[in-house]
């Protein structure tokens, strides 16, 4: 056996644990959803048993309308009373996307963007409909109503 000095201490190999920690960090970094910022998670969405899983196949351009119980449009956490202007801005952005995809696309045609309506369960439809009408007026035709299949407290 080799001579060992008296002050030598045991030194565990930290490399495997460091590898594992970095893998965990990578995992958490990947699962962070940046899009969450545009989604108001405080909304209680309607519960519809046969709603289908969202599948945009990674191709669709989405515009999200969060409508709270008072019928206000919430954009990035801020209540926007000027929702007509917000919709007009989104329509202009969608028009630019459409013209980039097809240079012959003319204003007034069917916009490629899907309007996602995330409305609270209790919001009266009378508050939601004017926003749909305004979006239709600007050329939006594809709409998605977001819902949950089961109430969150029933999830296991």
């Amino acid at each position, binding site marked *: 056996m080799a001579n060992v000095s008296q002050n030598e201490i045991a030194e565990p190999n930290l490399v495997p644990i460091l590898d594992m920690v970095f893998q965990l960090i990578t995992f958490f970094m990947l699962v*962070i959803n940046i899009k969450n910022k545009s989604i108001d998670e405080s909304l209680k969405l309607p519960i*519809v048993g046969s709603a289908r899983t969202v599948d945009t196949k990674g191709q669709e351009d989405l515009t999200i309308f969060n409508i709270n119980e008072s019928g206000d449009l919430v954009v990035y956490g801020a209540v926007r009373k000027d929702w007509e202007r917000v919709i007009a801005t989104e329509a202009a952005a969608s028009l630019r996307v459409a013209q980039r995809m097809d240079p012959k696309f003319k204003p007034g045609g069917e916009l490629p963007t899907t309007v996602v309506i995330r409305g609270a*369960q209790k*919001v009266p*439809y009378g508050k939601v409909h004017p926003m749909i009408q305004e979006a239709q007026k600007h050329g939006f035709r594809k*709409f998605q109503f977001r819902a949950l299949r089961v109430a969150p407290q029933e999830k296991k």
Partner: protein
Amino acid sequence: MFRRRRRKVKQEGVTLNMAAMLDMAFQLLAFFIATFKPMTIEQQIALKLPPPEKIKSDAEATKPNPDSPVDVLLKSMRIGLEASPDGELANILFIDDGSRARNLEDFEAKMKSKLEGAAKATPIEQVILEVDPRLNLQKTMEVMDRCLHQKMADGKQLTKISPVLARAGGPTK
């Protein structure tokens, strides 16, 4: 921090201190765990919503007018959704024949039989929901969902559903 040098008889190597890096990695990990909030998995009801198109009357359906723009005249089924003052669904009315449905199951069954009945004469191509402005979104979506379960005369799923706001005082009689 101290630097330790291990003396060996013939061999001298450099040992990196991993502890500091591990501390930092654990702090990062703690941050990501603390801020991790898995998103609720949402589902959707997807609709293609053009503005409601003109309604074709029974007379127009049986005697088509060559001058009328047939492509925008659709044989429609009009359904009125009445709400109670608290926004719940009070009544479902089939406006064309005045019949009513007691609940959503009854509505689905009646709608199915009406669509099948209409398929023999003039197939229904769109459903217009005249929604009471007070009705909450939950109930509106439940009715839309029941409509989407239906099939048209050609066997395709009914997709042309146009919700409109009912006039004050309830759906058009």
